[in-house]
Structure formats: C-alpha cells, structure tokens
C-alpha cells in the first residue's frame, strides 16, 4: 500500500522539549487520528511536516516527496487547518479568495464559493468576526478548493461546540470517499477520531507510544477493575497506570494478559481517551518512584 505520509526517525530538540525518533506512516485512502495530551509533540511534528520547523534528523516524505527539498510542490497539493485562523482578519471571504487564488495552480473559485455556501458562511462579513466553528470551516473550504490530496488538521476542534465538530466529521467522511486522499487529524478530543479514524498514532512526551490501526489499538487494551487483594501475583507488573483507591483499583492492561484472570476482576474494552489517561498516570508513577 502506498503511503501518502511517511515519517522516519524524526528528531527535533528544543530547550525544554524534544521529539525523539518519531516514525509513523499513513497509507493513501485513510484517516489517521494523531492524539496525545497537550505538549506531547503533535504540533511540532506537524510543523516539521510543513517545513516550518527545521528537523535535527530523520526524514519526512509526503506524496513520496521530501519535506525539505520538495516543500513547494508538496504544499501545492496539501491543505492545512490550524486551531486558529491564519487569514487576514479584517477581510471578508471574497477578498480572501482574491488573495489566495493566484498561489495555487488548481485553485477553483466555483468550488470555493459553493463550499462557502454549503458551510453557511457569510461572504460579506469580516472573517475575524466569525465564530470559531466558522473559521474552521473557512480553512477547510480553502483546503478543498485547490484539490488538496492530503489534509492536515492541527487541533481543529479545540474550543468547538459539538455541532461544529460533527460537521467537520461529515466533511472529512465525504472527503475520504476518494481513495487517493488522506487525512492526518491531530486532536486531544479523542471522541472525534474514535469512530472515523482508520489509523491512530499516539504521541507521548515526544515519542510514539502507539501507531497502527485503530481497531488493533482498541482491541489490544482493556481497563481492568476490582479489589486489590484479588490481583494474581505477577499480574500487577503488567498494569499500565495502576490506580488504587479505598474500595479497589483500576488500571490499563493489554488484552493478551487478560487470560486466566479471576472472575472477581472486571475488564472492559478501553476507549482511546482511557488509554491516554492511563499512559499519563503511568508516567506520573515513574516520575514519583
């Protein structure tokens, strides 16, 4: 399967934060949820893909092209949605369209205005006065109007109401119907990607904690609960983010470690959100011990 995005051994160090050996790939035709708590390195990775951050080592290819040397031809085919608007706030949609049009060979004004209409965006109001959801949709409209084959979204849903978030999922579901496209969707609201994502990459502390299909992730982990005295010997070492309280405990565990556990312990499938929470708890333990 051809990869639309491929990152190998990406390292990038700042004074107070570093990406360490980040590698993952997204096959053409699929949506990848890029999750992790704030500060885990999602935005830095995206900035590296866009050649906005200079990478220390590693290689990123988009459409099979190198992210540093071929950045211009990559961007011609790339759509990006950030958490905040990157367009002139005092202009209206028509003026913005005028500005952006000449930059893209494949810009389609008709497509742009039909999207604006579809998304219910007024074309005579300053875009700076738009609501957060409207700004997000405007950026999506821009991405869709120059035939982008890959859309990268960096926390597009933070601060959005559920209706706008659902609308975005509709748009992405429609977009990915074309199997030659791809979506990298960074978010810390995992409910957004829980249903629609084909692949998931979990970033934690600048490192990849998991990358692969979402089904495999959610099938590989379970939340286990019960009374501490019922934990068979040797099992506790396999817990991730063990949390004991007065009446019992809970922890994350790989499902292949679940065999033969006593009936007194309850286990249920873990959501991506729960997985993230237990990863964070596990790290807290490590720091304290």
């Amino acid at each position, binding site marked *: 399967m051809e990869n639309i995005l491929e990152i190998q051994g990406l390292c990038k160090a700042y004074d107070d934060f570093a990406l360490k050996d980040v590698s993952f790939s997204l096959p053409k035709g*699929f*949506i990848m949820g890029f999750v992790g708590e704030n500060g885990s390195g999602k935005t830095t990775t995206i900035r590296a893909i866009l050649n906005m951050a200079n990478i220390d080592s590693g290689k990123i290819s988009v459409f099979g092209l190198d992210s540093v040397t071929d950045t211009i031809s990559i961007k011609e085919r790339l759509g990006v949605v950030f958490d905040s608007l990157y367009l002139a706030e005092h202009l209206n949609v028509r003026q913005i369209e005028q500005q952006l049009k000449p930059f893209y060979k494949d810009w389609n004004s008709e497509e742009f205005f039909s999207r604006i209409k579809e998304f219910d965006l007024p074309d005579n109001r300053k875009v700076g006065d738009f609501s957060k959801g409207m700004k997000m949709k405007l950026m999506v409209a821009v991405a869709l109007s120059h035939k982008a084959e890959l859309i990268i979204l960096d926390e597009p849903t933070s601060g959005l109401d559920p209706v706008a978030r659902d609308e975005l999922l509709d748009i992405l579901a*429609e977009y990915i*119907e074309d199997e030659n496209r791809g979506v990298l969707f960074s978010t810390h609201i995992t409910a957004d990607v829980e249903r629609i994502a084909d692949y998931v990459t979990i970033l934690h502390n600048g490192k990849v904690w998991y990358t692969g*299909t*979402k*089904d495999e992730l959610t099938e590989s982990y379970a939340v286990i609960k019960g009374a501490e005295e019922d934990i068979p010997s040797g099992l506790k070492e396999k817990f991730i983010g063990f949390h004991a309280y007065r009446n019992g405990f809970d922890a994350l565990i790989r499902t292949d470690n679940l065999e033969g556990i006593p009936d007194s312990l309850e286990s249920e499938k873990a959501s991506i959100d729960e997985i993230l929470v237990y990863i964070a708890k596990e790290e807290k333990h490590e720091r304290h011990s």
Partner: protein
Amino acid sequence: MKIVIKNKSELPIYEQIEQQMKAQILDGTITEDEQLPSIRQLARDLKISVITTTRVYNDLSDEGFIISVAGKGYFVAPRNNELLRERMLCEMEDSLEKAVTNGRNAGLTDDEIVMALRKFMGE
C-alpha cells in the same frame, strides 16, 4: 438498508453493522441481487472508518451473505436457503448454550431456564 450504530454498545461497530445487515438480508428488506453501497460510500454515510466497513464486507462475503463482483461492487448473494438456515440454526444453538450457562451460573434450575425461554417466546 437501514443501519443504526450505537456508540455506547459493548459490541464493536463492525459487529453491529454485520448483525443488522444479516437480519435485513434474511428478512428480505435488502432484496436478492440488490447492489450495496461501496465500502467507501458506506463509511461516509455512517461516518465510520473505512477499515471497519471493509471488515464488515469481508466478513459478510466469507459467510456467503454478499458477493463481490469485480469492477461492479457488492451485491446480496442469491438466496441459498439451506446454507443460511443451517447457519442460523448454528447461531441459535450457540446463543442457547450461552443462555443456559448464564442461567446456571445465576443459580437457576433447568425448569426455571425453560420457563424464562417460554416467557421470551411470548407464551
């Protein structure tokens, strides 16, 4: 074809879809030889992962409910009643076995389990 996905269900999404499609194929809601939406269309309509719908179609083909016609897409398989009946019987036996085990674990007597079954059947 009508499919309802419950996010809060314990069943994985692919199983929910498979069950509902099977039921609709069996009761004739989806007719024989009817063309099904493509894998990507279905994913779009339900706003779910393409990998999930791929899995649904693969499972349903394996079980003989639908067939894939190269270049055309997926269709409901011509009704092979004997095969389907056998499969449904199999599933019934599995479910009954599970029901009996659960009942016994709960401390019911065999009579009580049969009573419970009768109640379900509306007697």
